[in-house]
């Protein structure tokens, strides 16, 4: 499929949409968390496939599956859309928007050191916790889906994720009120 997309075979893109479109839509919908309409979600998915089409040469099969690559593109498309909708929905005036602009851009930046530390910490989680954590907090997966996927009870999933969160908070010196964490 990837090679055919590289060769600009639109039928291959259609097959990709058939195969992953719904999963991507589900992901985008979870990330939008009720912001925007179903059209927004579908547009986001469409944009993700378009980005994949245009950037297919950036896809490196050594790094991960095509599916994962699509998921990651869609995730960030959805975040862009959500930020856009949130900021505009909260807009009170052109002036306030202007002030919000600078602040938001700064607040969303996480230092590369913190990012490195965060990823290293996640890497230290054993399996299945590492995958559970990633699927839940990077891909916004539902607890019920994770329970089904891992053959665990929902409570067991919650307990494992709780332990991960506690470990992360301790390592990053975070409190539950958000100290040390940049809020969106």
């Amino acid at each position, binding site marked *: 499929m990837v090679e055919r997309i590289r060769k600009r075979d639109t039928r291959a893109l259609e097959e990709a*949409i058939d195969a992953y479109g719904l*999963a991507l839509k589900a992901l985008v919908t979870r990330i939008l968390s009720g912001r925007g309409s*179903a059209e*927004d979600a579908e547009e986001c998915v469409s944009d993700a496939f378009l980005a994949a089409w245009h950037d297919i040469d950036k896809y490196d099969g050594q*790094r991960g599956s095509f599916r994962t690559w699509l998921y990651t593109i869609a995730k960030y498309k959805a975040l862009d859309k959500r930020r856009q909708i949130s*900021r505009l929905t909260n807009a009170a005036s052109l002036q306030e928007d202007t002030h919000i602009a*600078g602040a938001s851009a700064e607040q969303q930046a996480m230092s590369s050191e913190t990012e490195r530390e965060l990823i290293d910490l996640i890497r230290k989680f054993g399996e299945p916790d590492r*995958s559970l954590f990633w*699927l839940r907090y990077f891909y916004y997966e539902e607890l019920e889906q994770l329970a089904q996927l891992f053959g665990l009870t929902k409570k067991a999933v919650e307990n494992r994720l709780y332990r991960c969160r506690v470990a992360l908070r301790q390592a990053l010196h975070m409190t539950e009120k958000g100290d040390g964490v940049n809020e969106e």
Partner: protein
Amino acid sequence: MKNEELQIVKLMDQIDKEDVMQELKDGLYDQSLEQSLLDIQDEVEDKAAIERIKSRTLSLLQEGHMHTQQSAKRRFLGRHARLLAAAAAAILLLCAVVFTMPDVQAGLKKVLRFLPGIGVVQEGEATQETYVLEKPYVQAIGEGTLTIDGIVLQAEGSIINLRGREVPEVEQFQAEIGDRIYTFRSFMRSASGDWFGSYGVTTDAIAPVANEITLYVDGRTIGPLKLVTAKTASDLERLGASELQQGIRVTAFPTDLGDGLVRIQLNAQSQAADRIVHSYGVSPIGEEDIGLYVEDDNGTKAIIQQDNDLSYPSDFRFRETEEGMKTYTVVIPYLKVSDRNAASAGEVVIPVPQVGSSHEVDVSTEIDGFPVAFTRIERTIASGVSVDVDTDFDLAKPRTLNYFQIRTADSPFPESFSWEDHEQGGMKTLYLAINPDQTELRFSLVEPHYIIKGPWRLPVTVE
């Protein structure tokens, strides 16, 4: 998710995309799990959604062929319109709030200013100085273009809108205003090859009001660009036209772009503050033949320019029908709107059948005056049900319900779900995820999206 979990999610959302791509190489998590998740999620099919995504994606890929294919161009327009539907909606909501205040209504004509390229008519003091870029400025860069779509300089703050086609995205740029340099940064951008950005000054400093500005974008000097005083209501009264239908006043503002091209920017003022206009029909609302059109005094329809220059669903261009023809009528047959704060009076409760079975139900409710009847529920899998619904969709009615969101009592946000529409429009079947041990569905209807019948006929004079 609980707040404590959301804090972690927010942290994870800040991880750089490229870093994620790099980390995946080293097996950050078990990627094979995604296939298993797919297997679970694919149990609930939504072929209609897949077809819509496919159609939109492929039509955008065919951009190069769209100059000669009218229907394809409409889809392309629709994409751009939708890109900023939320943006325009928010701005229009703001306008709606402003315009519904009685004292503002009383002094409306004295204080309105049209901000070209920004997609908004702004209310302000009569003495307030506001300078704007009258027409878009297009800078060719290689095979692409960078368009300065709108500039507004005023004491309360400045805003500059840029659009790019086949040029790199612009995160920020500098602008020289009154002998000082200010940095502008994007706070709203949509991108997928073509992109749009709205920029504000990054510091607390307010850029001065001036009639000239020079932009320094990625090493290029653009300008100096001459700015003009924003047109006020008295100017607009001569150029624009408005009509009130069903509590929504729509106004059209024309700008002569030269070369026989006219830009129209629409503005809606609603008597209901929470009502948002999502579409004026520039992009199709369901059926192709209910969209907006422009005709001259002879009844000849103008060709609507549906290139990639659009930013807002309220913004379009048309080509003059013949040289010298300066009077036209913009006709908007329908508006697509939503009411974000509307909710059904109570919860809908529908018993969930056993796996593999279905039953008729007779559950009725209403939202925002629209009757909604749930007629059947089917459970094909343990974790999902389909529910047939009748919203009595009928475009002949003054208002007809297009779709709604649903919300459960324990969630502040609408639930994620998919649905299938009837061919003529309106919801037909909802597909909802459930817990395997769930015995009933219990939810409220919120945020109805509906279509309001016009027409709004707006005569405009091009000058």
